[in-house]
Structures are given as structure tokens and as C-alpha cells.
């Protein structure tokens, strides 16, 4: 968090990033800011895409469109080189060292399903326990429910002293998509290690916003999505300990993932290609490579400080409004604020804010169990990224005030 005095006017504060110049890289802000500036505060759902990423995708389609790993001609070689170079850059962005391999997937959901299915089928037996938290996104809960049913294993949710010799895998969200809570995953991986359990970190909300170092986190698997970190939709990554990925059978089968195929049986390609059946999302992977280049250029530490300053200001401004209730107060938090406004249901609020060009999420945020625990059926949620600034927060709170007036 920045060290600014409470209630200091935003004009007196400075942000680490030059938002005006950053926004110039994102064509959508120019294209959608017709009547009102496009105030995009739904970054936990998906992020906007800079020109550099669009250009990288376009370059593939217009200059060297060909399939990867099989085409014996120049365009195919260029495509393979660009695809594999993207893998290397994304892997190095998250600090995947020699011990880990990086597999392109469709996104976080597919990456978690891959582990739940392929690792689970190999390792889970009756009586084993899968440890999660109650704040998991549905994508890190439902796959484990299916796996547990099939293996006769059971799900447990982290409370004190729940790590035991029965714990086979601990799969936890790094940063909550509802409250922005940043979990101490390093502590969790250490505890898991002490009982011999494998660890998976759902990093969909953290890799886009926090400097991530897989070696330091000491996890076995880490999953994230491209579209929440300035990349295209349809691509994400599973970073996994090579030793475990080697032992696992494939998740999806078909072309690309094989070494030899006869009518009766087949053998598998090496990791990571063993887990990339079929033609991959080549353009999207190349686009994700361009996205990590963009993020690295700005610097993840700077991006984090920038978001922390905007979030701190948003919390102050929202707390000043007596009608607003904020959910979640973890000291370690990212740029996500879930809130409700007395007398204005979040769906109505979202509709009213949209009139002012403000996009927020309203609903259960794919985390129904934790919403049930809070005893709320829905909340509004504002989530920030590197192109948001204090003015966006001011527009949000002004529009909340006029929504209150509208509904009364």
C-alpha cells in the first residue's frame, strides 16, 4: 500500500503508472468512450486487450498462419517458433524453473480439470482427502467434487489442524475473486509438504496482478488464464512439476500428444506436448506471449503498487458512504472490492452504473458457497487493473450516489 494520508484529495496523490499513456495502448477505451469515459471495473472477470496483443494475433493470421510441430515449410516453422517462444516467455514470467514444465490449456478451468482428472485418477483412492478452502471459485471446487466421487475420496475445507496423512492434494485459490483476499499460499504449500501432499494453486486472480515465482511458492501445480492478464480468451496455462506430469496419463487424447500410434495402442509425446492434444490455440498462445511482454515492460511490482493505491482510495471513498457495505477486510488484499448498497440490489446497481459507462460485476461471482456463508445472494464487485485511476473511483462513487437517488 502507498503511504498516503487518509482523505487526501486524489490530485495530491500520484500513481506509479501513467494511466493516460497506458490507456492509449487499449483501443477499446477510445472506441467505447462516446458519451462517457468507458470505466471498466470488471477486471476480475476479464481484462482489456492492448494493441500489442491484438497485433501479435493478427501477425500470426496475416503473416505465418500454419499448424505447429508438423509443417515442413517456412510458415509452419515460424508458427512453431512463435508458439514455443510464447511458452518460454510465459513460463519465465511466472518463474517456472527446470523442475516445472508449462502446458498450454484453454484456461484455468481446463488446467484444474486436467490435474483433477489425470493426477486424481492415478493417485486418489478411497479414504483419501482433498483439501480446499471455502472461498474457492467453482472452477476449483466442482472438478474436485467429480474426482472425489469417482475415487471414493472426500473433500475437506481448510480449518486448523486439518492437514493429515490422509491429505493427498491441497488445491487453493491464491487471490479471492470475491474479496481480493490474498491467501498465504507459501504457508499452505509448506504445511502440505509436511504431510506429503501435492499442491495446486489457482492463480487466475494473482498471476495477472502479483509478481509470481513458482520456485519460491514451492507448489506442484499452478493454473492461470490468459484473458485476465491482457491476453486473448481461450488460452491459459498449467505449470506443473515435471516429475508428476511425467507419471500422469494424458487428459485429452488425439493428435499432437502421441509418439507412436497403432490400431491397438499408442505411446505418448513428451511433457508438455503429451497434454496438448489436437491443434492448440496457436494465435491465442502467441497473444499471451505478447501480453506477458507488455506486463514485464511495465513491471509487475509497479503494477501491484498502482492497483494497491487505486484500491485503497476506492475503499476509503466507499467507506465514506453510509449506504455501502464492503465485504472482506483481509490486510493482504488485491484490487477487488465486493460491496452492496442499501436499497439498491446489485443487478439494478450494475444496470444503473452502465448508464454512466461504468462496468462492474453483479452476482455470486462463481463462488456460491462463500456467498451462502455471508448470507447474501449477490454483491456488486469492482475490480481494478493497470489502466484504472482515481477518476474511475470518483465516477463510481458519484454514480452510486445518483443510483441511490434514482431508486428512492
Amino acid at each position, binding site marked *: 500500500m502507498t503511504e498516503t494520508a487518509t482523505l487526501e484529495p486524489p490530485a495530491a496523490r500520484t500513481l506509479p503508472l501513467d494511466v493516460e499513456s497506458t490507456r492509449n495502448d487499449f483501443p477499446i477505451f477510445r472506441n467505447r468512450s462516446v458519451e462517457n469515459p468507458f470505466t471498466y471495473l470488471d477486471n476480475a472477470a476479464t481484462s482489456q486487450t492492448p494493441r500489442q496483443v491484438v497485433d501479435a494475433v493478427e501477425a500470426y493470421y496475416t503473416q505465418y498462419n500454419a499448424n505447429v510441430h508438423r509443417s515442413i515449410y517456412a510458415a509452419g516453422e515460424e508458427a512453431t517458433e512463435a508458439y514455443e517462444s510464447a511458452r518460454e516467455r510465459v513460463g519465465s514470467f511466472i518463474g517456472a524453473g527446470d523442475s516445472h514444465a508449462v502446458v498450454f490449456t484453454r484456461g484455468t478451468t481446463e488446467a484444474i480439470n486436467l490435474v483433477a482428472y489425470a493426477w486424481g485418477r492415478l493417485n486418489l483412492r478411497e479414504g483419501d482427502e482433498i483439501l480446499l478452502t471455502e472461498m474457492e471459485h467453482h472452477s476449483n471446487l466442482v472438478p474436485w467434487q467429480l474426482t472425489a466421487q469417482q475415487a471414493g475420496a472426500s473433500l475437506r475445507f481448510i480449518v486448523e489442524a486439518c492437514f493429515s496423512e490422509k491429505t493427498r492434494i491441497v488445491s487453493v485459490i491464491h487471490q479471492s475473486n470475491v474479496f481480493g483476499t490474498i491467501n498465504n499460499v507459501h504457508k499452505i504449500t509448506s504445511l502440505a509438504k509436511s504431510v506429503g501432499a501435492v499442491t495446486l494453486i489457482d492463480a487466475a486472480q494473482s498471476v495477472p496482478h502479483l509478481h509470481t515465482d513458482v520456485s519460491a511458492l514451492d507448489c506442484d501445480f499452478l493454473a492461470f488464464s490468459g484473458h485476465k492478464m491482457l491476453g486473448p480468451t481461450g488460452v491459459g496455462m498449467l505449470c506443473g512439476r515435471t516429475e508428476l506430469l511425467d507419471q500422469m496419463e494424458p487428459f485429452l487424447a488425439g493428435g499432437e500428444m502421441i509418439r507412436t500410434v497403432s490400431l491397438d495402442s499408442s505411446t505418448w509425446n513428451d511433457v508438455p506436448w503429451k497434454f496438448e492434444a489436437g491443434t492448440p490455440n496457436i494465435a491465442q498462445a502467441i497473444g499471451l506471449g505478447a501480453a506477458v511482454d507488455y506486463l514485464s515492460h511495465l513491471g509487475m511490482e509497479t503494477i501491484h503498487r498502482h492497483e494497491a493505491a487505486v484500491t485503497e482510495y476506492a475503499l476509503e471513498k466507499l467507506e465514506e458512504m453510509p449506504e455501502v457495505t464492503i465485504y472482506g477486510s483481509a490486510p493482504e488484499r488485491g484490487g477487488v472490492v465486493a460491496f452492496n448498497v442499501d436499497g439498491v*440490489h*446489485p*443487478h*439494478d446497481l450494475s*444496470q*444503473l452504473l452502465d*448508464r*454512466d459507462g461504468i462496468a462492474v460485476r*453483479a*452476482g*455470486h461471482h462463481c463462488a*456460491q458457497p462463500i*456467498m451462502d456463508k455471508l448470507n447474501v*445472494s*449477490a454483491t456488486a464487485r469492482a475490480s481494478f487493473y493497470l489502466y484504472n485511476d482515481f477518476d474511475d473511483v470518483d465516477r463510481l462513487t458519484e454514480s452510486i450516489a*445518483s443510483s441511490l437517488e*434514482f*431508486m428512492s
Partner: protein
Amino acid sequence: MDDLRELYQEVILDHNQNPQNFGRLEAATHSGDGYNPLCGDRLSLTLDVRGDSVNDIRFSGSGCAISKASASIMTTVVKGKTVVETESLFDAFHKLVTTGDAGDGELGKLAVMAGVHKYPVRVKCATLAWHTLKNCLSGKNEVAKTE
């Protein structure tokens, strides 16, 4: 914000703030729940059906202004109607909120919901109570969903 006034008519805001027939009937002949999985809105209906007419009806639950007002207005309209009449109203109402076509006047005060048709995402909010009512009256013992 002026075009939103067409969606959020005064009548709708009034019903949202002061919902009619809110609560539960102790001696209900029919009851049922509705759930909108997309947004988490929940609604419960209890009915007292005598012969083939809706003698009394109550609703409870949580939801946005559109779903709450729609449920409230629905309860005031169907009270005293026959089951066959409510089915016909369901069809007319569905047409109203999906196309804006208010028909030949059968809808009466339900016509204030016409603005919904311009906001396809909100159709589910407006129809949750009606889907729940339809399930209740047809004796289907399942949670009504708008998906």
C-alpha cells in the same frame, strides 16, 4: 439515465419498496420455489386455490427491483383469476417482456413491465415469479428456473 426510466417505471419502484402480498400463507394449498442460477435470485410462492380459482397468494424471497416488482404485481393480478386465466396471462406476459407487444389489453397493469424487452438479460428477472407460479399450479414439485 432517462431511458432507464422506461425500464424502472414509478410503479415498479413503488412495488419494489412496498411489495404487495409479501410473506407466506399458513394454510397454502400450493407452494413452490423459484431460483435464477445466473444471479442467485430466490423466490417462494404460497397459494390458496379454491375450486379452479386463486383465492389468495403470497410471495417471499430476495431479488432485484425488476424481479421483486414483477412478483408483487403478479400476485395482485392473479388473485381471483382462474387457473386457465393465469396460464393465458403467463403467455401474454412472456410475449410482453420478450417483444414489447402488450396485446389487446388483457395485461392491464402488468403492461408497466414492457420496458424489460429492451434489456434481454433482465427478462429472467421479470419472469421468475411467473415460471414459479406456473410450476405451482401445474403441481410440478420442482424448483422453477428461468434458464
